[in-house]
């Protein structure tokens, strides 16, 4: 599994009926292997439809999608879709709603077993995944329905990671989690990215996009509004305004300083830490305005 490529992809819900609705229009994009892409845009802008196609859950109405060797178009058969899903893992929004097995371990082993992995191997993959999510090992034999909300979320994510996907899609993985759990989860995603997994993350929090992504895809009305690095995106005020995106707090803060006459060497600090560094440099230079 390697690079992802969308070629002039359209998706129409209920095509050929009075209720036909365009969800994706003439979408083309190429993503490198091992990249980390944040996907932002309003509700109904086509983010989830796009990701569903990438996981073979929807088939493009027109156009073509390539993930490594697998090519998907509207004539794609079930085998091709199954092959696609083997390499792509999808952590849905509120994934805890997909738990079903009697024990946590069985639930996490479910995915690998479906891929045809031997039970012993599946168990090993499940245990590693549970460990990676920092879940205490004494919950393995408990029912997933006895766990707290945050733990259930992590078990569900472990269920996807245990399948060792080379492309991982996450749909707002931190929604409803407390700050500490969010940070832990994002650090884990970043770690997977460092190890070479291609990551696509739908998010409404620009801080997350700015901190982790190497590219941001902005969707608007089913079309690609922008695809650029976070630095390029958040320095483009006109584009942000048009897409209705608020820059991360650190960027907004730097812009406020700038409007009051304090220039930083990097006017788009993507994280609070970078902003702090910039401010330190300025202070050492003798923090006068208009320097």
């Amino acid at each position: 599994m390697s690079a992802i490529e969308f070629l002039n992809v359209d998706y129409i819900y209920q095509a050929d009926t009075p209720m036909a609705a365009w969800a994706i229009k003439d979408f083309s994009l190429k993503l490198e292997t091992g990249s980390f892409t944040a996907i932002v845009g309003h509700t109904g802008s086509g983010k989830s439809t796009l990701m569903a196609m990438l996981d073979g859950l929807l088939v493009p109405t027109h156009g073509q999608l390539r993930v490594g060797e697998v090519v998907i178009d509207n004539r794609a058969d079930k085998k091709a879709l199954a092959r696609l899903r083997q390499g792509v893992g999808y952590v849905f929004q509120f994934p805890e709603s997909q738990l079903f097995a009697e024990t946590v371990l069985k639930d996490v082993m479910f995915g690998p077993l479906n891929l045809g992995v031997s039970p012993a191997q599946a168990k090993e993959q499940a245990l590693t995944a549970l460990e990676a999510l920092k879940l205490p090992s004494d919950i393995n034999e408990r029912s997933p329905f006895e766990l707290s909300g945050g733990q259930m979320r992590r078990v569900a994510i472990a269920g996807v990671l245990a399948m060792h996907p080379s492309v991982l899609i996450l749909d707002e993985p931190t929604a409803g989690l407390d700050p500490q759990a969010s940070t832990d989860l994002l650090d884990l995603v970043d770690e997977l990215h460092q190890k070479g997994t291609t990551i696509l993350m739908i998010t409404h929090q620009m801080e997350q996009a700015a901190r982790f992504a190497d590219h941001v895809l902005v969707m608007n009305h089913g079309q690609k509004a922008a695809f650029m690095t976070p630095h390029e995106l958040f320095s483009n005020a006109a584009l942000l305004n048009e897409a209705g995106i608020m820059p991360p707090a650190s960027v907004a803060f730097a812009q406020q300083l700038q409007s009051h006459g304090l220039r930083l060497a990097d006017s788009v600090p993507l994280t609070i830490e970078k902003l702090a560094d910039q401010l330190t440099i300025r202070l050492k230079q003798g923090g006068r305005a208009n320097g």
Partner: protein
Amino acid sequence: MGNAKVILGAYVPGSSWLHHLDPRVKLFSCFWYVVIVFLASNWLGYLWLFIVLGTLIALSRLPLKLYWRGIKPLFWIILFTVAIQLLFSSGGHVYWQWGWLAITSGGFYQSAIILARFILIITISTVLTATTPTLQLAAAMEAFMKPLRYLHVPVNQIAVMLMIILRFIPTIMDETTKVMNAQKSRGVNFDEGSLIERARRLEPLLIPLFVGSFKRAEELATAMEARGYDPDAPRTKYRVLHWHRNDTLAMIGLTLATIILLATRLMSAGMLF
């Protein structure tokens, strides 16, 4: 995918004359039409029923394809029933015989009647459900259940239950699609393998749906109680149904259609002409 299919019996938004009729009129007329389908006694009667249906379809301003979609899921059941009628009915001229199977003119006649009734009844129901939002239909049912109150039937509670059921059908359908997608993404193939294997595969779908539904029911009950819902209190309506001139016209139309159908019966009896 679930939401890519047109759901049987789903409302199709529109602003036709039929869409604007009072749901009580539409529900009663649909019911009445089904009754008079069984009163037709000759081909003239059926012809008249088809003319009435055609007029209603035209008045609904919805594409014919949609009505065909209503019949399609039941196609095999219809075919089976018609075939049974054709092969097992006796009487009249015998065209073909094999053991106790026979195709007779009586069989042809019987199966044609069954086919016509199927098409008429299914399509008139589709006319009703396609032009009437489900909540309005529930309001109409409630209106017709009102007299049962005197028999101490809890009409109010039944109406609220009915509304909740109808309100949550799309939610549960959405939820089904979501869980199905999540499990497909985890490598489940819902439409392959033997019947037992397929039934087994429903477990990862049904358990999350049950858990979710119970949770939602509890949340809904809490929310309703928090807002002071009392099942025994008299209910007021947000959307009050009003009778318009068009509703009177529709009832006149229905009466005329019935009289003409009865006339076709007399024709066959030779009492007319």
